[in-house]
């Protein structure tokens, strides 16, 4: 049992786990505190300054880095809080490439959440200068687009790549308003150490990192990735009869939401017209469709013709470790040969 801490947000008593931050505890209880740079999977960053709250007796503080303490009294709405976070939000919007209707993240964007919560006033925003970056879009990666004109510099992608992946393909570069998320030498992401896992894409709070050809699914199907023996839990986003998105299942113990490039982006074969959807058996020099039963029967019947070193097995990386164990047992014990290999070794 985790230690429980009792504290108050805007007068409401809240119970939270020891070690949770104020922001995390609030969000868990359905209390929204504006934020951009915080992510539950990552160490707090504290850069966006939007999650500012007042801690009674201590004054203003960001809430994403402060652990809950017994008896704390948190105020999420006050003139002091608003003075700071309203300006922070306005500044972010004034420097954002706002094209919401054309943006892949429309209605699923943390900046929109912030803006709608704080309530951006046209008149106030007008006083600020529009400072839009005009950076080329990096579409070098076959699976995702980097449009840094929309980047809010939350650093989530950087921390994802460093903390979770240990790849470190990207980091902050330059200073002042020129600050950017960049690869070494500012090369296109494809020429960096990036392994195209898309973990950063999945976490970017805005439309700066979006999958290519993103389409919104209408429903999700839970399943297991077929690519390898790890067996990552995935959620297939389906639209009509097509898979248009894959995301990791956070509840799967195998991957806790993470995926590799194949699991996340390698799904277009599913709807490919050339994909085999049933076994084929060569009859009279031509392949004809057959059922699995027919195919298996055919293979089984032929196995008796080959014994010992006349026989070899190539096992697959796409089946589980347990299944591969059975394959080698079959090869050695039943077929009597050590002619056994595996595609992952090649």
């Amino acid at each position: 049992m985790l230690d429980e801490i009792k504290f108050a947000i805007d007068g409401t008593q809240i119970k939270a786990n020891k070690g949770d931050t104020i922001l995390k505890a609030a969000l868990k209880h359905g209390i929204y505190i504006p934020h951009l740079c915080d992510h539950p999977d990552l160490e707090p960053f504290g850069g966006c300054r939007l999650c500012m709250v007042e801690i009674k007796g201590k004054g203003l503080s960001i809430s994403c880095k402060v652990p809950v303490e017994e008896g704390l009294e948190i105020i999420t709405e006050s003139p002091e809080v608003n003075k700071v976070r309203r300006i922070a939000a306005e500044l972010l919007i004034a420097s954002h490439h706002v094209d919401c209707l054309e943006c892949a993240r429309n209605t699923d964007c943390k900046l929109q959440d912030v803006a709608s919560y704080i309530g951006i006033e046209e008149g106030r925003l007008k006083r600020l200068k529009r400072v839009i970056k005009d950076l080329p879009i990096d579409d070098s990666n076959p699976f995702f687009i980097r449009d840094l004109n929309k980047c809010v510099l939350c650093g989530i992608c950087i921390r994802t790549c460093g903390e979770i992946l240990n790849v470190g393909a990207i980091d902050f570069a330059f200073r002042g308003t020129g600050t950017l998320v960049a690869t070494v030498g500012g090369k296109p992401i494809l020429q960096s150490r990036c392994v195209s896992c898309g973990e950063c894409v999945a976490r970017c709070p805005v439309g700066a990192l979006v999958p290519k050809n993103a389409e919104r699914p209408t429903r999700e199907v839970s399943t297991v990735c077929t690519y390898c023996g790890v067996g990552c839990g995935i959620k297939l986003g389906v639209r009509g009869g097509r898979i248009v998105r894959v995301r990791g299942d956070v509840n799967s113990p195998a991957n806790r939401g993470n995926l590799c490039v194949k699991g996340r982006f390698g799904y277009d074969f599913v709807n490919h017209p050339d994909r085999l959807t049933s076994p084929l058996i060569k009859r009279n020099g031509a392949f004809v469709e057959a059922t699995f039963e027919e195919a298996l029967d055919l293979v089984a019947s032929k196995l008796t013709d080959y014994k010992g070193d006349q026989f070899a097995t190539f096992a697959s990386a796409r089946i589980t470790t347990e299944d591969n164990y059975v394959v080698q047992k079959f090869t050695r014990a039943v077929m009597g040969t050590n002619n056994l290999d595996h595609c992952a070794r090649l």
Partner: protein
Amino acid sequence: MKFEEIAQTAKEEWDALQASAKPSIVVGTATCGRAAGAMEVMEALRNELKEREIEANIMETGCFGLCDAEPLITIKGPGGPSVWYRNVTPEMAGKLVEEHIVKGSPVAEHALGAAGDGQVDGLTAMSDLPMLKFQVRRILFNCGVVDPSNINHYIATGGYQALNKVVSGMSPEDIIDEITRSGLRGLGGAGFPVGRKWDSCRRVPSDVRYVVCNADEGDPGAFQDRSVLEGDPYSVVEGMTIAGYAIGAQKGYIYVRAEYPLAVERLENATAQAKEKGLMGKNILGSGFDFDLEIFQGAGAFVCGESTALVLSIEGKRGMPKPLPRPRTTEVGLWDMPTLLNNVKSYSIVPWILTKGADQFASLGTERCKGTAVFSLTGKMANCGLIEVPMGTTLRQIIYDIGGGIPKGKAFKAVQTGGPSGGCLPAELLDTQVDFDKLTAAGAIMGSGGMVVMDEDTCMVDVARYFLDFTQKESCGECSLCRLGTLQMLQTLEAIVAGEGDPDDIDMLLELGEAIKTGSICGLGQSAPNPALTTIRYFRHEYEAHIHEKKCPARVCKDLISYVISADKCKACMICLRECPVDAIRGAKKEVHVIDQDKCIRCGVCMSVCPERFGAVECIPGRLTEADNA
């Protein structure tokens, strides 16, 4: 070797130099001197001496703080006084050698002053120079006096006595107590009590601790730390070694910007020599205490002067300040170990305090700020340079007594202290005493000691714009308010000086400024709005003139001024007409000239070429058009 022997050797070398029968020439070759041509001067002097087959002791020294006088050299013939020569050029070398050294008669026309035996007629005593007279040089004691690449000079003038005293009998607690009693506050800007910092670092349980010196010095116009490193590097090395002993650290780092190559060279030399003498490294002076120093060159980001960013930078990461709440650097610092971070000057004064005692240190200063402060004086003042004064000296004393007041009969307008994080104070506040608290209360800060004096020809909006331009570029980009807010403030100020200010702009600058100050992570953002906020506070009318009347009262902002030719004074000489680069001046011989206000680009050439005796061209606030000529 025992310290007494080391000191004896040093003293003998120093005394021999002082008593030498050879003439001596001392050349100030700090970066400032070099920029003014000191190396060429030294070369020329060498050649002149060689030609005449004169043997002389030529010594390099650090910055003496008299910027206007660079290249500055001192010549001393045997027996005669030391004479300081100002603005020496290689061409003057022959004459100086011939007259002063060969003939023994100092060249008064190039002399700044003299000191020592046998005063010379017509030469001021150096100690009477206003620039020096009011100073108390403790931190700068050796700067411009000894050879900063010779440890024996440092030791002969009292150096390393403190370290010797410390390792041969003082407990760490005694040292920290002495520093605490002295009242020394960190000289890097924030003024945190040094003794308290040492004490808290010492108390954090750990086997490994680090001592780090902040020599990042990124404020535009500040060069105090560079001067100390170039002119007296041993004091910093000794101070850090003592700090290591006091807090229980065996390793130190000096974080110095790579743009300071001479400081790096002097520090490397200093640490090597200290090691050779057993004053650093293993078993210092036989005490069993080990301490080593590494020099780390930073890439010159202003924000890397902030403590947590500096630590990250040494670790090889991007220097981005860590937001609060976080542990103090004294608890979790370099490589996550307790780390003591102090400024160059804070370390360099430590040997002084331990040698002379806390009471003597505290005899100068104000109630809450003891000792001295070092300032780099720049701007519209008769004497600019590096000075050291007791805490509590007033701005007026610094600007008028030491700085010699505002030249060309102009009126004082404002003084900016604390660099880009500081503020501008008006004439009414000239009697403010300089110390950490009093300057902060007035709306400026002590900062690292930059002091820029402005006269009536300075536009305060433009000054704010200048500093915001700096901070905006140097923001590390981490927090939204600092990164984007400073840019908004800058663009608003740019619009105001371009005559495109909006009536709302002042309120917006105040609102933005307050939000950035409250909401930013580190001192950079928390202070970046200060130059704008203080100029609005004390010179609001100038902003209003720019915005409402479209006039720059100080006649600086090109878009808000006009040049006009006075019909009464114009002698129709055709000079300005010919010089105007855009042919904006109409007129002819015997026909009063008129500036076409629509064509004029306000470069001011006409005003500068109009003969002084006519003085017919005038620059006026406000932007005229051709319609006004009609």
